């Protein structure tokens, strides 16, 4: 009992901190603060869930599996990179062969492939992602550290927006099933799913920036810069979440316990947002893992459209530049995010639905 209360207090405290951090980050200061609170929040709820559900062994097993997955991914990307013809130092104007040889020797590119592979893996387990070939002297971790926070911030805002819009929209549509409200909101959601983001982005920029001159069209320097990219990025997930929520709420709303709740005389608001919604979150949760990973790891089209200094451009450029360490670093980062998101989602299954047993 004591433990329960402590967890609740902790959750409320961290929630408030994160909210504060979020608001502060929106106004441009306290980004590190936002980061720390967010990290503590995620880590904290992680620990809470793990202790509460006695899932330590499960967690360890999953971490072990994740390690293997990451190793396979690193190997795969490493090999794919070397399959590509051309090297990192090919230029329009070919360098003299001596210089090429020196460069290859410096980065150990003249060693046999398996040696390079072992060297990279050795670096990796020591937490070193290597140095970029293109941005000479800059470690990959610095490049990621410079650009990832921006992509992350954009992603978090878009995620919050899409859940805040998507879930209520889905619940309302399901509640008024087969009414004009339902069909029109679902048509909007369907359009949102089908709209390519460059079209939405282009329309937003044209209207808000060129025609009405209300908002800046690019860059990432303050709240007014955030609005359009976040809207553009959040639209599609919001629409998908709305559709998922609607169909899942429709399933639940017909079940017996809802009828009982109505019979008890509970208000519709309580029934819908407390009883029904809680029971219909599983499909939304399932979708959340890949969605969060996708959005956090840089919506590169959005970043390109709004010229946001995020990670997206590095992913494309590093491949065309044959900047092997950078590609590998980014691929590993993206994979870690994806694996983590899926793990967190699996853990939250057990929280949302105690019947689910994680073994």
């Amino acid at each position, binding site marked *: 009992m004591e433990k329960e209360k402590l967890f609740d207090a902790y959750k409320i405290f961290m929630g408030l901190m994160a909210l504060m951090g979020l608001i502060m980050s929106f106004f441009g200061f306290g980004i590190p603060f936002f980061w720390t609170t967010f990290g503590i929040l995620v880590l904290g709820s992680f620990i809470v869930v793990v202790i509460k559900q006695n899932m330590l062994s499960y967690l360890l097993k999953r971490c072990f599996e994740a390690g293997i997955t990451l190793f396979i991914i690193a190997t795969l990307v490493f090999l794919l990179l070397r399959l590509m013809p051309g090297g990192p130092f090919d230029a329009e104007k070919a360098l003299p062969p001596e210089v090429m040889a020196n460069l290859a020797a410096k980065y150990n590119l003249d060693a046999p492939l398996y040696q390079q592979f072992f060297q990279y893996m050795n670096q990796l387990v020591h937490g070193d992602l290597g140095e970029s070939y293109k941005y000479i002297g800059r470690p990959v971790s610095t490049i990621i550290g410079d650009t990832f926070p921006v992509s992350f911030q954009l992603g978090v805002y878009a995620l919050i927006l899409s859940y805040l819009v998507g879930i209520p929209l889905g619940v309302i549509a399901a509640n008024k099933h087969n009414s004009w409200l339902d069909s029109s909101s679902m048509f909007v959601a369907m359009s949102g799913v089908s709209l390519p983001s*460059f079209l939405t982005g282009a329309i937003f920029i044209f209207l808000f920036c060129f025609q009405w001159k209300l908002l800046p069209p690019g860059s990432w320097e303050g709240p007014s810069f955030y609005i359009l990219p976040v809207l553009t990025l959040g639209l599609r997930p919001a629409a998908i979440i709305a559709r998922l929520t609607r169909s899942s709420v429709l399933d639940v709303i017909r079940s017996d316990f809802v009828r009982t709740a109505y019979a008890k005389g509970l208000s519709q608001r309580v029934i819908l947002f407390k009883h029904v919604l809680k029971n219909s979150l599983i499909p939304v949760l399932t979708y959340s893992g890949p969605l969060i990973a996708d959005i956090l790891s840089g919506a590169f089209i959005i970043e390109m459209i709004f010229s946001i200094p995020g990670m997206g451009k590095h*992913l494309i450029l590093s491949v065309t530049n044959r900047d092997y360490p950078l590609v590998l670093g980014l691929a590993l980062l993206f994979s870690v995010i994806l694996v983590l998101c899926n793990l967190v989602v699996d853990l939250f299954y057990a929280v949302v639905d105690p019947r689910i047993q994680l073994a």
Partner: protein
Amino acid sequence: MGLRTQTIESQELLTTKDKVGTSLMAKIQSHSLWNESIKRLKKNKTAIISLYFIIFVVLVAALAPVIAPYPYDLQNVDATLQGPSLKYLLGTDALGRDILSRLIYGARISMAIAVFTALVSLFMGTLYGAVSGWFGGKVDAILMRLVDTLYSVPALVLLVLAKVVIESSGYFHDPEFRALFSIFGALSIYGWMGMARIVRGQVLQAKEMSYVEAARALGIQQFSIVSRHIIPNILGPVIVTLTFQIPSNVMFESFLSFIGLGLQPPFSSWGVLANEGWRSLRSFPHLILSPGIAIFLTMLAFNMLGDGLRDAFDPKMK
């Protein structure tokens, strides 16, 4: 339809026990399973309109050289960046090429990539998923772990890497075909996994059914049980997945071309057109509208048809 007769045949195998009753029932039931679905689909107006729209787009794409008013790369330097007019219905681009013609030719490439990728995913995914689901146990565990691992490679990384590897492999000399094939290959490498998961889940369910048991008892070869009995019976979810895969392929193709990794001008796909339009957005916003709306409408139609199909095959899922 070949599919339907196969279902009926598979049901007829059950009739050895009770010659008259079950055979009649099976015939009526299996008959009505598809018929009912098609009936339900026909009632769904949005799905039918979407279907007609898709047929229209496919026809336009197939007949591009016949119906396009101009060749896709014909430049008219006297009429660059014009707005819509009678001569150029959707205007012209910076090099005086007719947008409508480029859009029609673009439909060809975008649709070809989307549809062929979906078909390859269908084939590979069904094969892989069926093997995994049918054999179960260790085979299933290993095969699915492989898919899970590949799935943990972020889509974009995998797409870009696979695309560049295929493109620079040096097998293709024609630049248009090279770009086309590399996008197609990259999307196929990514796309089959989703289908494999769906098929595997369905096969796992279906193999517990009594008709499979009956087929086994009759001594039918494993291969024909899967290919002639199970797969026809799980076609519903497979078709629905296929229908949803096509629009996501359209989207990926346009994304790749939009960021400059896909086709390059003068060749035309909707993504290429969007990229060109994007670059002159400030002064000539109509350039991005036509490819954008084309992508939007096509995706909308496929998504709506997919919704309709899902409701038709499984009315409970609505």
